[in-house]
């Protein structure tokens, strides 16, 4: 049995670790609430943009034409992997990287073999993981997942859209963790560019006046809708990150509690054994004196 001092030191160290993990859990819970609020704030804006685009689409003759909607043969593909800048959040980062690599090897295996598939990392942990596995990165924008404002994220989105219009890439995919609730994140890979217009079954036709005209409205609206999409995806990912960290830290705290309980039991047993031994020694000594 380990000696008393050793056990005492271990208990103290586990206790201080527990303090850290439980504090991190609280911090993540607070940040989670904040990032959830941001998602809620975005919802009306995003919903309205989509609605206006839909009504534009319905009132126009034929298909909408826009360089960001035109689909091309996917010769060169870019996968944007959204992770986080900090660790200690369970499998959050490795899941999203794993998903991206899976996507590269299944859906885009042809481009992968030809070396026409590129990764773009948003989040330092994802970038490190991809580099560690030997994948080349087209670029990194790590500060975007630190809760940046819309204008900063929209300039990043503009950059990505330029990649598409300049024909640097023919398809752009997003891989991220979608926020379901604090404990559950859903891994998503979705097509970002070209933008697919949704087909609505029931047509609610409103006879709008379009100013200046429908075509220029579309030119204006499509990039806006895409920027909102990137913004939303990043917000979702941030919320998921905090959710994942909260769960991971909760578990760590629970484990620490269990460990402390076991160690205390061990400590008390050892202490009792030592006392018993001492008493036996004294009694033995007293007997011998008789």
């Amino acid at each position, binding site marked *: 049995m380990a000696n008393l001092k050793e056990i005492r030191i271990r208990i103290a160290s586990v206790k201080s670790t527990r303090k850290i993990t439980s504090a991190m859990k609280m911090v993540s819970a607070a940040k989670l609430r904040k990032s959830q609020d*941001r998602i809620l704030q975005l919802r009306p*804006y995003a919903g309205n943009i989509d609605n206006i685009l839909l009504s534009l689409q319905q009132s126009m003759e034929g298909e909408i034409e826009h360089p960001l909607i035109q689909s091309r043969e996917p010769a060169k593909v870019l996968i944007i992997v959204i992770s986080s800048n900090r660790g200690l959040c369970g499998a959050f980062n490795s899941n999203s990287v794993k998903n991206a690599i899976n996507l590269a090897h299944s859906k885009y295996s042809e481009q992968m073999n030809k070396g026409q598939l590129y990764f773009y990392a948003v989040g330092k942990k994802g970038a490190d993981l991809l580099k560690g596995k030997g994948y080349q990165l087209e670029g990194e924008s790590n500060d975007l997942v630190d809760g940046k404002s*819309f204008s900063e994220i929209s300039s990043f989105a503009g950059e990505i859209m330029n990649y598409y219009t300049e024909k640097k890439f023919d398809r752009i995919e997003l891989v991220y963790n979608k926020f379901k609730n604090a404990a559950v994140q859903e891994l998503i890979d979705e097509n970002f560019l070209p933008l697919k217009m949704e087909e609505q079954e029931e047509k609610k036709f409103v006879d*709008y006046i379009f100013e200046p005209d429908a075509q220029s409205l579309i030119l*204006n609206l499509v990039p806006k809708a895409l920027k909102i999409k990137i*913004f939303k995806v990043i917000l979702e990912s941030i919320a998921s990150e905090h959710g994942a960290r909260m769960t991971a830290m909760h578990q760590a705290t629970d484990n620490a509690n269990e460990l402390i309980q076991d160690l205390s039991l061990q400590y008390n047993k050892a202490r009792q054994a030592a006392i018993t031994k001492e008493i036996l020694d004294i009694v033995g000594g007293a007997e011998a004196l008789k």
Partner: protein
Amino acid sequence: MFLEIITPEKTVFSGDIKLIRVPGTKGSFEVLSNHAPIVSTLIKGDIKVVNKDNEESHFEIDGGLIEVKENKIIVLGEFS
């Protein structure tokens, strides 16, 4: 009629109003009750809102979009 001015990050204004004047791309225009449905892009400028009690308020925008439909106005604004 009901007006909402929203940005991706927050709702700037929400409430019943009498009149709104916005800087449309083809020129500034006003919207009163029962305006025909319209969608217009907006340029940098000033939005004037007059509420039910004839109180005026102003919002500075960098651009955006307005949708008017059945006495419901939505301004999707970009602020710097």
